[in-house]
């Protein structure tokens, strides 16, 4: 009897818990269409070394009502708040339908991905994405012809230090994250703002995107990564890309490569 009762309670509790979770997402639960209020979310994104946008974090978001676009409901005409990653803030009495100006307001937007002025309807979620800067290192040149690679590459961006040895430069395939070449810096600017590296043997490098990872040598001999620069190589057609290794076969054992 007790076990049966316990099972029932667990099942009910599971349903209750999941139900609560689902309803937290907003929009679920009730079948009536809201006539007032909306949600807003601020997000920081960045442009990666691979040329793709990446979601970084939640951020602050604010909005101001501009004008009605229909019979208005709600009296809130401005809001400001911080939304954690993926979260939306409720503006339960937000005036709709209306034109609003809604922006991610972290003060560091290089670019916004949605127009700030938008038509807001009841129950909608207004996303304001901000592209923030990324402190990637820069490689010069940043594109090379594999048939005639440059003798040296200059990497800028700062933070380089030769106190415990010349910084290590590693070249990674952007697709697989595999090391394809490496070298040590031949010189470092006295203020640490740039370094020079002799182009290593690039056999096995094909047309595509690569990342240069720069690491300083630490006192204990270990490497401490400083940053990453992107470069592209051409013009040797790559073979078909390798499939990713099966994680089930390569968990902790022999497939683990260093």
């Amino acid at each position, binding site marked *: 009897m007790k076990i049966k009762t*316990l099972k029932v309670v*667990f099942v009910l*509790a*599971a349903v209750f*818990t999941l139900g609560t*979770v689902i309803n*937290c*997402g907003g929009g*679920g639960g009730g079948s009536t269409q809201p006539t007032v209020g909306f949600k807003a979310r601020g*997000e*920081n994104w960045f442009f*990666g*070394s*691979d040329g*793709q*946008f*990446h*979601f*970084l*974090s939640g*951020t*602050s978001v604010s909005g101001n009502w501009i004008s009605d676009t229909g019979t208005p409901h709600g009296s809130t005409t401005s*809001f400001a*708040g*911080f939304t*954690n*990653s*993926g*979260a*939306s*803030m409720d503006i339960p009495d937000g005036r709709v339908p209306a034109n609003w100006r809604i922006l991610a307001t*972290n003060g560091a937007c290089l670019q916004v991905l949605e127009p700030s002025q938008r038509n807001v309807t009841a129950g909608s979620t207004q996303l304001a994405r901000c592209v*923030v800067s*990324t402190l990637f290192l820069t490689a010069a040149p940043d594109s090379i012809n594999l048939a005639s690679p440059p003798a040296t590459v200059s990497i800028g961006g700062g933070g380089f230090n030769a106190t415990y040895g010349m910084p290590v430069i590693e070249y*990674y395939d*952007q*697709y697989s*994250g*595999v*090391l394809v*070449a*490496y070298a040590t810096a031949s010189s470092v600017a006295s203020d640490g703002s740039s370094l020079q590296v002799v182009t290593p043997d690039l056999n096995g490098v094909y047309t595509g995107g690569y990342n240069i*990872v720069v*690491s300083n040598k630490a006192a*204990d001999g270990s490497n*401490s*990564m400083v*940053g*990453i620069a992107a470069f592209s190589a051409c013009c040797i057609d790559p073979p*078909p890309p390798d499939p*990713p*290794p099966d*994680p*089930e076969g*390569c*968990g*902790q054992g022999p497939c*683990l*490569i*260093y």
Partner: protein
Amino acid sequence: MSKRNSLLGVLFLSSALFATAVLVFGGRRASSQDFQNDRADSIARINSKAELLDTADETVIRDLTDEVFMSFDADLAPPEISDSLKDRIVRAEVNYRRGYGKPVSEFGVVRMTNMLMKKLQAPAYAQTNVFEVRRLEMNFLPFLSKFIGKKPVGTSHGPKALGSSFNPEMSPLEAVVIANLLIQQKRVNPAYQLTQDEWVAKHYGKNSSKHEFGDKSRSDEMEKAIKRGGDLSVSELVKLPHRALDMLGVERGEGRTGQ
């Protein structure tokens, strides 16, 4: 059956959902009250606290773990529950940094993510692979250079060989952060909502993927999968949080850490 027992049942089941905190509870904190405290970007806060991780100092590790839990909303689970998981991660991190514990393989991140996505019956593009994990890490390096880019003394395997991975081994806490970042991208970022075949076609092939950056359809599908919750049974729910950390490769240990 007393009210107290019913409540305990709910709490227990809530705890089971911890492992999917980023997927399910995740992202539910939003308020104007947090405005002042949370202004700094959560990744910047993690990186800043990781800079202090020079030793196996449990206080520093716990502080960073608290920050990670808060950043990914894992602290929204009941404290009795999140504390036990936090303890496990802190213990594993302390042991790793003292040279007793195992590192976490990058494949652990793949296994944990794929397990959770499978449990949620998420679409095929929600699955990941080790190449995608490495791409994520490389892109986040400028933001997490004090964490990803800084290995504890004594864990270096010497110079890398050609063909080596970018970051084959992580500390337990580092792996938790990477896994959470990856799951976030899977939720909202079209660049990560591609199957391996689609990714290859988009970047190498002649067929450009139809799924472009501005397309929110897959993000919407992901949200639906999360809200649906897969077909998780009660027993699965109960086992899920620690199972997820098992899959990640975070060691189980006995007792609390010595703080």
